[in-house]
């Protein structure tokens, strides 16, 4: 055999292997193929790959992925029928519909229970932050107690005060504008969310939890239970 012939045979095999590939994904066999190739060639290549696996493919689940945006249903059906007849595979389907990025992200988070392994950097304190005292938190800050006038809280994330908030609060520092400031008795001297600053309000219902958030380039204060800003999220998320 001459050297030229060897090179030619190698290139032919390379061409053949590139039009169909097989990998195991979970319990399924994922077959990627090039739909532009003739059906005969695809069947030969499938036969070569599945033939090697012998009884392992019997009653297995096969996904045929044409690797193009427009999947050819007829081609998938005919190749599926070929595999069922020849190798006795159990179930053949096209690739699953792709989800939007956001949906996929949420699904993954829900599936993985992301909060289980979340390393929390929430600072949670009890007691009273008095005048002249300043508490800084890298991320979220929770105070089970009161923030007195003259007291100051600065947080990288949200600020939650389970009591009276009478001092100065800066949340989402330096530029996290989706941070919120929540208090059961919301009467702060001044609040800051990201780069937005607002004066405190003198009068507060005092008995309902209120929260401040950025809306239309200004800080809005609303009844937390009525607005329920996180109630519509489909899954619990790490904040």
């Amino acid at each position, binding site marked *: 055999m001459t050297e030229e012939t060897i090179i030619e045979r190698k290139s032919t095999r390379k061409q053949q292997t590139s039009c169909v590939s097989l990998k195991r994904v979970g319990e399924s066999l994922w077959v990627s193929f090039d739909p532009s190739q003739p059906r005969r060639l695809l069947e030969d290549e499938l036969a070569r790959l599945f033939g090697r696996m012998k009884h392992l493919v019997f009653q297995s689940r096969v996904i045929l992925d044409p690797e193009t945006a427009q999947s050819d249903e007829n081609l998938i059906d005919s190749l599926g029928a070929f595999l069922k007849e020849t190798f006795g595979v159990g179930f053949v389907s096209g690739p699953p519909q792709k989800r939007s990025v956001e949906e996929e992200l949420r699904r993954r988070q829900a599936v993985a229970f992301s909060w289980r392994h979340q390393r929390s950097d929430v600072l949670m304190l009890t007691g*009273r932050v*008095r*005048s*002249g005292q300043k508490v800084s938190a890298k991320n979220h800050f929770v105070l089970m107690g*009161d923030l*007195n*006038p*003259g*007291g100051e809280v600065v947080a990288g994330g949200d600020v939650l005060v389970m009591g009276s908030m*009478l001092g100065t609060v800066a949340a989402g520092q330096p530029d996290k504008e989706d941070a919120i400031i929540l208090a059961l008795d919301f009467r702060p001297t001044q609040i800051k969310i990201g780069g937005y600053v607002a004066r405190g309000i003198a009068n507060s219902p005092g008995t309902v939890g209120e929260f401040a958030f950025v809306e239309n380039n200004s800080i809005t204060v609303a009844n937390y239970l009525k607005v329920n800003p996180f109630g519509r999220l489909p899954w619990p998320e790490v904040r």
Partner: protein
Amino acid sequence: MEGRIIVVTSGKGGVGKTTATASIGAALALSDRRVAVIDMDIGLRNLDVVLGLESRVVFNIVDVVKGRCKLRQAAIRDKKIENFFLIPASQSDNKDVLTPEDMMKVGQELRKEFDFVLMDCPAGIERGFENAIAAADEALVVCTPDVSSVRDADRVIGLLLSRSIMPKLLVNRVIPKMVGRGDMLSHQDVVEVLSIDLVGLVEMDDQVVVSTNTGTHLVLQSNSKAGEAFQRIAMRLNGQPDLPIEDPMARKGLWKSISKKLGLRK
């Protein structure tokens, strides 16, 4: 038994620390306790004037600390009350001549000599404050029902707590009429924000000005509401902590009671 050193402080100036120190000290001395009041406002002394002893000042607390005189030489006995002494401040030095360590040393001597030592702390939270609280076992925070006074008192309470001194609150210059109209914070509002034990409420009283200017004791005046209140505070400090606190708002006249019963008044 060792005596107790109580620092009377407020953060804000002009809320009645000196009057409170003089009156509570006098009341404690009247109940047969050996009491010293110390003016810690070095450079701006006025406790001697309030007690009418300015003409008898020879030595002062700086002299005691620097070893220029003995404690007994600096302590001026009151004109009317037997067991009541004043250790005045120096008028010519500044607050930096004393250090907290100096005060802790003098504090030990004072505890042996007296049953109660009341320290009149200067306004502010700088060196003078540090010196005054260094030797203190307890603290009395004087606060008027003003937003600014409450804020300063809150700051001082935080500093005292950080030094493991549990302060008690004295709300001074309460004007029941204004509280009733909603123009002044009530003592409940003040206590809610400061959240420390209340030791007494002192009503606004014109007699305070008279006694301060004449150098007479408020607690010896028969018709002074403030004097009575300071006496009750002294009793609470002197072994009767459960003595009920009289609420000036609850004091109502006959006409008010009748009109309330008739439903004319809430």
